[in-house]
């Protein structure tokens, strides 16, 4: 029972903090809410029997990746200015179409979910099992992921260089 209560609490926190994160004007505030949302998701992972995923979510997602965001926001030195034009968010022509589309999509997703037979999550999956699977049948995927990360590294290094500013690399 406790787990169910914890799950619904965590889910509520995750949803609310996500919505808050996406409606902020100040990017730093948004990030804090996003981190909160990620932590809540980590709790959910733990509850559905994936402790290893929960740890990774905290360490890498909420930790490393978000730190990247913080660094960039600090580099850009946005300050308190925000963007005045974001105020137009409240105008109907900006939000009507996306909201309608999103609602239709949500309805469709719920329909899809309702078609499947009800099922429940089963017990714990240990990190040992994950490791065996990862370096067993999925070893090729690990290689591909490593190449992807390398490409991301090179791309970020190239894009971050200053000479692009002069139009040299475009």
């Amino acid at each position, binding site marked *: 029972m406790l787990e169910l209560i914890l799950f619904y609490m965590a889910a509520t926190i995750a949803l609310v903090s996500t919505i808050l994160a996406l409606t902020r004007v100040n990017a730093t505030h948004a990030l804090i809410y996003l981190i909160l949302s990620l932590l809540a998701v980590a709790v959910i992972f733990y509850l559905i029997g994936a402790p290893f995923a929960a740890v990774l979510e905290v360490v890498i997602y909420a930790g490393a990746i978000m730190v990247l965001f913080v660094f960039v926001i600090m580099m850009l030195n946005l300050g308190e200015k925000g963007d005045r034009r974001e105020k137009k968010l409240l105008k109907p022509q900006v939000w009507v179409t*996306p909201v309608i*589309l999103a609602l*239709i999509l949500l309805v469709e997703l719920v*329909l*899809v979910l309702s078609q499947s037979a009800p099922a429940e999550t089963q017990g714990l999956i240990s990190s040992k099992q994950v490791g065996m699977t990862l370096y067993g049948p999925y070893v090729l995927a690990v290689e591909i992921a490593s190449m992807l990360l390398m490409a991301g590294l090179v791309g970020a290094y190239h894009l971050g260089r200053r000479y692009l500013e002069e139009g040299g690399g475009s």
Partner: protein
Amino acid sequence: MLKLLPLIPLFPLVSSVLLMVTTGKMPKRLVAILGAGSVGLSALTTLLVGLAFMESGQPHHQVLWTWMQVGTFSPDIAFYLDGLTLVMMSVITGVGFLIHLFSTEFMEEDVSYSRYFAYLNMFVFAMLILVMADNLLLLYLGWEGVGVCSYLLVGFWYQNPDNGLAARKAFVVTRVGDTAMALGLFLLFTELGTLDIQPMAAAANSQWQVGDTLPVLACLLLLGGAVGKSAQLPLHTWLPDAMAGPTPVSALIHAATMVTAGVYLIARTHELFLLAPPAMLAVALVGLITSLMAAFTALVQHDIKRILAYSTISQIGYMFLALGVGAWTAGIFHLMTHAFFKALLFLGAGAVIHCLHHEHNIFKMGGLRTRLPVAFWSFLIGSAALAALPFTSGFFSKDMILLQAYELPGAGPWLWAGGLLGALLTAIYSFRLVFVVFFGEAKTEPDRQPGLRMAVPLTLLCVLAIIGGWFALPLADVFPVAGEHHPSHLIEGISIAIPLIGLVLAYLIFLSGQLKIDGLVNSSLGRTLKKFWFSGWAMDLLYDRLLVRPYKGLAYMLRGEWVDVIYNSIVKVCQMLFVGLSHTQTGRLRWYATSMVFGVIVVIALLLGVI
């Protein structure tokens, strides 16, 4: 040694490709070594192969690979070496090498040095393919290849639009002949089932009788191709304009090798022509009329290169005359000697032009005998050979042609007389050139002397122009043996005397001035005739009025034709679609994301079966 045969065209090809891919970034020295050296290597290989061939005495046939296979039609990339091929190859690589060597100095100051050698090597390659080909299709490949290289080299200095026009004219006019030749090839293939030259000749001999319509038709179509390439009437108008190219190009392509391809073609397919006496007569007449017409024209030209161009047309006319009367060996012999002395004359002219600030008008030259001795001696020897003065190379070949023409039953003496008139005119115009340019008072000072790389080829060609007549060509096995000659001494004497008379006349008119022709020239008839001759018998004007302008008028009339409406409306619809679709490209990320979401919704709805 005979197996080395494919190497001969390979050297220039490799060099040409190298020069092309380096796009002028090679140092000039290397370009010169590569450009001239590759042709030199070809010449050496030709020598080796020639010696081996002389030893065996048998025609050599070498198949490299099958070019293509379409039903029963499977032409090979194959080479055929016999006496005729060997003569042509020697001329192409030998004279070609000398001209390349000459060019290394002549073109030294040109910015497009390596482009020049790339084209020139490619030309040598194509020309070698033309003469070595075992089947008429491969020959046609070489035939078109030399046409393209000629086009590129005539328009070499493309910055001047006139040169481009001249190049285009050369290309289009020869294309008329090439089309006829292609039709001839089609006809031969459908009738005889093969384009391989030797089996084809055998098939023709077994299928056709002398005088049948088909061989006459086929030969006339081949003659059309030959006439276009060799600048004979009525397709000769491109050659004088082709002098827009660099002078060594004129020497190599428009005097020594490419323009004689027509002669080679007819000689190569002589077994077909022997089956078609009317076509033979047509060849002889075309040759004779062209040679006379061009000789008259050459008499009145001012431009040193145009004189030589018309002279070339005239001399090739002689070769056609020889082929037409069945004097195959004499025709090829004249081809070879002509290659020597005309290349010599052109290179001499090149040296004069090079040293004289690119002056072309002979009346602005004069007195160059002491100032440019190398060019003077080249011209003197070349003109002597051209005029067929006794004991020069041209004398032997031209004499052979005239005597064999005389012996043709029926029209023989007439052809002979026409040829003699041509010989007289040749002597007059060639010595007019020598006397005007090298004697008299000096009008332009040369600003330099030809260097070693110009002088050496000139000297070697001088030697060849003199002794070329004593070469024994290995053609006995190729052509049917001509009948025994029994020329009377009178005929022979006249043949020898005519060029001398021409020389004396030229001396009297143009040098000593004892023979006044001003009255004759300035009479109204004389003036009209001079103008007429000067314009090349108004052929350009005729073609312009007869073909070019009506064509242009027709094109002008058909501008708004309804077929265009269809194509234009397709364009319009495309443009409208483009404008409509480009409105969806707002450049806004959010718009794109929203579109994608819309698409996702539709796809999921389809999967759910809602829609």
